[in-house]
């Protein structure tokens, strides 16, 4: 057990901290709205040039081209958290499509998409879930029928983030209706302005449309958009699904929220008493701190496992379930602590923290459900983590 950094890594950390500090003026602010705001794109380009994002992606595809180093990646993430500066772009194109193309894309696909995606010039959305295919994703039914050099797509996707802003979609479609469900799926890329695609915003409980529904009516897309092979899309998707789960439940983000909550309870007062001086609220706060400490330590343990090339086992499998639940509870305590002011949500004289605690309390519940529901996570923990028997499958018809 040694939680200090070696001189090489300590120097690396200092260098990252200095770079961020010296260039803070380049960072976009909250007023620079829009995914492709010039300031955002310039910031992203700067971060790639400095090796602060796209770090291990080869230079020929527009990355920084460094050797993979988990500790350095962790240090970069921590320094971003410490600096409070906007993090690099991390949309689904960058986090899921780019790794997929690097592994399985054709040279033409890599050439066409990776660099522009990294730079933020090309926005992607993910067409996976359907109304009838949520936890059972492989039951998806959006059909793609071969016609000459094209596929013709009909069907519907749901839970599609950034569909309105996206230039392109990476999509799972059914290309063989006769095959067993995992064997008739194809992973395909196409532009969102293809005729026959209709995007409808899906308003959620937060009042915003964080997701969309996407409808396909005779959408004709070229076959060269297929990644890897026709009917092998399930394998392609699985290469990156695990990656998505790792993104949810980041302990650094949880700690940052906890620190905000402590600050709130130290500054807010009811009946002349600071919230932190209410013993019931303080007890709940300390209980959450114990959990925050636990998830941080668990994160350190996972990082060490990865550094050594070992599987983190159970400690890795529990992150999404525990991390998302903890975030939700932190927001829940903030709302309780705020009392009746905790219900305020829109601009006004008495609003606290911009209404963000209510927003988080609702949005975090969405994250408990999305990206693999809590119940699916429990199946995975029990089956893969502890070798418990799988649910017996119903006989196939």
């Amino acid at each position, binding site marked *: *057990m*040694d*939680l*200090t*950094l*070696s001189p090489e*890594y300590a120097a690396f950390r200092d260098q990252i901290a200095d770079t961020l500090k010296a260039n803070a003026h380049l960072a976009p602010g909250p007023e620079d709205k829009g995914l492709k705001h010039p300031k955002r794109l310039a910031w992203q380009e700067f971060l790639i040039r400095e090796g602060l994002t796209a770090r291990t992606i080869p230079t020929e595809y527009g990355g920084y081209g460094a050797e993979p180093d988990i*500790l350095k990646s962790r240090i970069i993430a921590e320094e971003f958290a410490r600096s409070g500066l906007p993090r690099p772009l991390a949309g689904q194109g960058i986090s899921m499509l780019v790794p997929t193309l690097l592994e399985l894309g054709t040279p033409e696909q890599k050439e066409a998409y990776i660099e522009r995606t990294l730079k933020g010039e090309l926005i992607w959305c993910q067409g996976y879930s359907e109304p009838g295919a949520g936890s059972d994703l492989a039951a998806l039914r959006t059909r793609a029928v071969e016609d000459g050099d094209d596929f013709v797509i009909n069907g519907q996707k749901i839970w599609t983030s950034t569909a309105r802003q996206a230039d392109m979609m990476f999509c799972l479609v059914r290309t063989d209706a006769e095959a067993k469900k995992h064997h008739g799926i194809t992973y395909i890329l196409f532009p969102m302005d293809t005729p026959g695609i209709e995007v409808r915003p899906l308003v959620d409980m937060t009042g915003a449309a964080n997701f969309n529904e996407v409808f396909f009516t005779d959408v004709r897309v070229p076959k060269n958009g297929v990644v890897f092979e026709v009917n092998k899309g399930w394998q392609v998707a699985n290469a990156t699904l695990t990656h998505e789960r790792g993104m949810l439940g980041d302990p650094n983000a949880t700690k940052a929220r906890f620190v905000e909550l*402590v600050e709130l309870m*130290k500054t807010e007062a009811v009946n002349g008493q*600071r919230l*932190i*001086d209410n*013993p019931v609220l*303080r*007890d709940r*706060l*300390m*209980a959450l*701190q*114990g*959990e925050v*400490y*636990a*998830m*941080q*330590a*668990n994160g*350190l*343990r996972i*990082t*060490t*496992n990865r*550094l*050594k090339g070992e599987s983190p086992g*159970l*400690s890795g499998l*529990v992150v999404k*379930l*525990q991390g998302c639940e903890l975030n939700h509870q932190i927001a829940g305590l903030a709302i309780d602590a705020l009392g009746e002011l905790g219900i305020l949500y829109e601009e006004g004289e008495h609003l606290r923290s911009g209404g963000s605690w209510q927003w988080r309390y609702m949005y975090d519940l969405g994250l408990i459900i999305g990206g693999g529901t809590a*119940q699916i*996570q*429990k*199946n995975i*923990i*029990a*089956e893969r*983590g*502890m*070798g*418990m*028997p*799988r*649910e*017996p499958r119903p006989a196939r018809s």
Partner: protein
Amino acid sequence: MEFGLSEDQIMLQETVRRFVAEEVPLDLIRKVADGDEAAIIRLETDLGALGLDGLLVTEADGGSGLGVLDALLVQECFGYGIVPARFLSNSVAAYALRDTGSALVNGIATGETRFGIALNDFTSRRDGSGLLIHDDTVAGSTLMAMDVRGATHMLCLANDAIHTGEPGAAEPVKTIDRTRAFSKLGLASIDKGIQIKDVDRVFAVACVLMAADTLGAAQCMLDKAVAYAAERQQFGRVIGSFQAVKHLCAEMAAKLEPARALLWHAAHAIDVEDEEALAMAFLAKAHISEVGTFIARTSTEVHGGMGFTDLVGLHYWFKRIGVNRQVMGSPMGLRELAARQQGLVA
């Protein structure tokens, strides 16, 4: 940066784990619980022969010179096998007596000095509990003293400071856990000239080791639940294939695994004298007590009716966890201590 156990630590834990698995079967624990003298002496002798009691004693004083992290790995094994070992008391005493120049520490390493511990007055004083020193005499008694039987010395709180002394009149206090003896105890004498400075830090070490005991006992209860669910059949299937049962097991693992990392971190923080160490230790015991209580009841439920019987003996683990939760700081009491430690209490 390496957050994990060393080869030596893994080996140490494996050795103790094997000893517990092979030498301390439930039958022996049952005999201890029934007050069988021969069984108690056999267990004491075997544990003494393991030579672990000097683990936290410095090498200069004849011990192994290891850290709190190493000690917690050992205690976790004793919790796993619900072994009533004196290791916790001896280790906390060895830690408290470091740098005091006391000859008692060498005795811990050789086995001549055997400590009991009574720190409960640190967090909760009641029913007239409390030791008071006047000149050369010690008045009063302390509740929930542990490991008094066979102890040559006690580590206890008197006049709000930690002292060592010889045990005096002991009155058994009967708890739900019959495997470990608790006593209401007075002191026969107090050792003069030993200055134990940092009461909070010594208490934090006791918290970490008690939490390690709960961690081990809870891990055992989880393992037993998973094993039982893989064997027991109902409706023509093993019950572990039902999500209702499987999800209970997943919830136990999901809470326990991060708690293990937290405890490693808390012990390491004490070893390297990190500024967050005390708050982390208090919160670690509070958190693991909560997780342990959840696992104790959930594992019992997974065992169905058998979990409720004496036949399986699961209740010994249930009670071990239940007692650990209440002594040396309740979860709520420790959370308040942690808040105080961080300057969050006005």
